[in-house]
């Protein structure tokens, strides 16, 4: 694979520190814990004649989750003088998006084109554009893979996947 000369990861600026992400995640979890605690309180977190109500167990769990998050935030804030590792560098983040964005597109396309056509597009596109592999190799690999998946799941194992116009045209 002819890789273009890229900046090495160590030179690439950090997008966020691990500590910042750690605190952000803890805050998000705290918010989630608050939301779930409220919902379970509304459902009923006490006891009635038959024993604990539906919200009892999850209510106390959301309290545990909340407390653990608060502890995490406090711990990271107290240690903030110690420099933190970079969470992700820009060049790494770009590579993560190189696979995440096509995956999102694949999930969207799958609803209109069916899984097999979408997977053909994903494999061919990813190999050719991200991997910089020759188009004919990419198209051929994608075709073989998609047909193999179709035969395995649809025909051999009876596992039904979303299908689109192409499959309808072929009579499936």
């Amino acid at each position, binding site marked *: *694979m002819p890789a273009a000369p890229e900046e090495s990861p160590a030179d690439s600026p950090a997008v966020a520190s691990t500590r910042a992400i750690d605190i952000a995640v*803890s805050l998000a979890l705290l918010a989630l814990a608050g939301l779930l605690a409220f919902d379970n309180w509304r459902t009923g977190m006490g006891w009635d004649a038959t024993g604990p109500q*539906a919200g009892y167990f999850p209510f106390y*769990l959301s309290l545990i989750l909340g407390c*653990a998050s608060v502890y995490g935030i406090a711990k990271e804030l107290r240690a903030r003088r110690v420099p933190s590792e970079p969470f*992700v560098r820009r060049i790494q983040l770009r590579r993560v998006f190189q696979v995440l964005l096509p995956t999102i597109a694949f999930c969207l396309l799958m609803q209109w084109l069916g899984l097999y056509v979408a*997977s053909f597009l994903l494999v061919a596109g990813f190999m050719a554009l991200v991997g910089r592999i020759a188009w004919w190799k990419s198209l051929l690999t994608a075709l073989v893979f998609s047909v193999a998946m179709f035969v395995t*799941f649809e025909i051999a194992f009876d596992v039904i996947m979303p299908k689109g116009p192409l499959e309808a045209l072929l009579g499936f």
Partner: protein
Amino acid sequence: MEAFELLVYGFGVLLTWKTLALMMLGLVLGIFVGVLPGLGGPNGVAILLPLTFTMEPTSAIVMLSCIYWGALFGGAITSILFNIPGEAWSVATTFDGYPMAQKGQAAEALTAAFTSSFIGSLVAVLLITFLAPGIASFALRFGPPEFFSVYLLTFCSFVGLGREEKHKTLISMSLGLLLAGVGMDTVSGQLRMTFGWSELFRGINFLVAVIGLFGISEILLTMEERLALRGHAAAISLRVVLRVWKELPRYWATLLRSSAIGCWLGITPGGAIAASFMGYNLAKRFAADKESFGKGRIEGVFAPETAAHASGTAALLPMLALGIPGSGTAAILLGGLMVWGLNPGPLLFVEHKSFVWGLIASMYLGNVVGLVLVLSTVPLFAAVLRVPFAAIAPMIVVSCAIGAFAIQNAIFDVWLMLLFGVVGYVFKKIGIPLAPFTLALVLGNRAEDAFRLSMIGAAGDLRVFWSNGLVGSITTLALMLLFWPLISALWQRLRRATSS
């Protein structure tokens, strides 16, 4: 001798052409999955699970467990030839395995790894054969309080014994338990934590979460690292195999020690990762010349591999006998049991004899066949690693999507998988462990049901968890483990105070 008769019966269940063919297919798929970067035991089993949805349970579990054996064998190939541990538990294998490959002894290292995996698994399977039925019949007497206390013990031992920061383990576990509770409450039938969103009424499927957390997030991580694969070629000849096997008896102590460590850590949720490191370190400590470790010593391959595989296999014991998985992969197999309409737990041994003994017999057969298969096909699978990652990554994404969709035929689950993929990526990077989350998600409802049934039975009296010797000692042990970090800190402060 009853176990032996049942085992023979299990082999009878197994020996049909169709089952044997599925076994081979499972092994090949498993080795394939184990060799691929960014996939491994739990993810492979989770992604390939949909293949089994339309099979009858015995064939399904045989194929799945063979995928698991295959993945275990496959992980060693990448560790030794490419210095990339396919799994966290193969990390210790790279310490001496890769140096051996560098010295041109790749074939010896691989043979040693496969053989010791085989021995470790065999010891654990023997343990399962003779211990599991007894534990299951003992557990038949368990009521809800006993079951809850065992669940509590499982959860608490993660907090007390895990190496991660305690509050992160707690976050992971409580989040898993909470997400398990989303949807219809099984006791009262009330909806909860759905916020009126109809897609959530079904609840959050465990397998969807696992495929995202392990499969998708692993792809993201691998992409970020951009692994440059530079491996050593290897072909194993019969001569090498026989030479390594001839040396085996010399290492009986290492093999035995590692098997014992593995079995113990597999049954308790300590896990294969801890087992492999412990096996390696103990072998090093007992060795006469410690310096030769890490420079390509065959014992350094024997020790961690035996322990990891004994542990991976022993993790199936509590799953079969009690319905409590001892590892991530065991948890996924448990999820499979539920999809096929089987209720995991001690009753399995009574109600589904052919299933249980078919599975146990398949562990013996799968291991033997797997060993032969992997020894003869190493060059083929090593070639898989030379396929560019740009071709493998999208294929894994597609397999994950198929897996997530097939579970409940819902597009929503595919999006949920993607969300869990991103969550898993972030969690792994900030050190929130995923194993407690997985376990909590699969056991959450059963733990809650056990708690509420105990409470209903005891009219809300918490003392029911100390109502007899058995349940009382398990509960006390669980609480001790939970507070173990605090207890040990206090104890040390006390000792320091008295000594000064």
